[in-house]
């Protein structure tokens, strides 16, 4: 198992970041969409707290992932991939990186403007971005958080769809190198 990425596949660290963040995003979507209509009970408060804590975890992981990725090789695109597909893939990936920062940040911003508590899994408090209640920015932050989420959903449809298309239609290595890294016979693993 290679820690670092090569031209043939993603290293174990980036693959871990990718799938961990993917799993947390899926959990956040389910929690986020189901928590809002809940009646006001302690359970709702706990679910909101969980959503906030996972969100801050994603933000931290995204920062670490981007920092690590800066010094990484990028596996080469499959031979014969058209220029527009390479461009589209780059654009989607770049926007996804932006969103895994921007969505937690907008949630943190909304939480701050709401003057709601924020303690990472109840362990330590995370400071406010607005220095207290801010009724002007509160609705804007919420709208930003929600809009960016739906942009993420649309991009993930494209991202997952493209990965499956590469794997099942093009029968290339694009999905495999994110699942298992580079092929064993190419000296990876």
């Amino acid at each position, binding site marked *: 198992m290679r820690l670092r990425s090569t031209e043939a596949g993603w290293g174990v660290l980036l693959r871990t970041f990718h799938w961990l963040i993917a799993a947390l995003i899926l959990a956040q979507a389910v929690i986020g969409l189901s928590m809002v209509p809940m009646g006001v*009970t302690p359970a709702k408060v706990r679910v909101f*707290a969980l959503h906030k804590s996972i969100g801050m975890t994603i933000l931290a992981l995204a920062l670490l992932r981007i920092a690590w990725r800066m010094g990484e090789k990028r596996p080469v695109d499959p031979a014969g991939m058209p220029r527009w597909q390479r461009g589209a893939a780059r654009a989607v990936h770049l926007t996804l990186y932006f969103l895994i920062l921007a969505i937690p940040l907008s949630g943190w911003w909304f939480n701050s403007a*709401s*003057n*709601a508590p924020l303690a990472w899994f109840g362990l330590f408090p995370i400071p406010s971005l607005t220095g207290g209640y801010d009724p002007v920015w509160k609705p804007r932050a919420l709208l930003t958080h929600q809009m960016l989420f739906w942009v993420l959903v649309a991009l993930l449809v494209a991202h997952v769809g493209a990965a499956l298309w590469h794997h099942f239609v093009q029968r290339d290595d694009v999905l495999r190198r994110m699942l298992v890294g580079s092929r064993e016979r190419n000296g990876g693993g």
Partner: protein
Amino acid sequence: MKVALGWLCTAAVVCFAAPALAKTWQVDAARSALTFTNAYQGVPYTGQFRRFTAVIDYDPKDLAHAKFEVTVDITSLDTQNAERDHTALGADFFDTTKFPRAYFVTTSFHQAANGKIVADGTLTLRGISKPVMLDVAFSPQGGAATLDVTARLKRLDFGIGAGQWADPSMIGNDVTVHGHLLLHR
């Protein structure tokens, strides 16, 4: 007869009420505040009651005749969080439909061993009356004075957020109430 009665009343006011009036302060409501601190999900926050009235009879040299009487409009709660305020006024918490006001009145004042003044009183909140102790700090400045009082309460003593909200790790049981009053004659 009417005139005589009138004079008698005036004399009574002058003789008996005047000494009491001499130590009754006017509260400058705009520059006074009734705040409290509590913890929500382990994170401390401060709230306030924007409307309250206080009758302050106080002379540090005459504690025997000192008296505080405070009425708080609970619906004026402001914790700088609209959702939290809305929930806090509901039936699970302050239940302001039934109990829109809190009332505090002192019963006696004494000087503690450390020299500080302590007021004993009764707080009626959410229909429950309990003894409450106030730390009193009074500093006169010419014809005016500032009065700072602090009380440490337990919200569950008054049934605020009992039942499903009782867990003190979610909403702290300890509440520190602080009154900062600007007084003038």
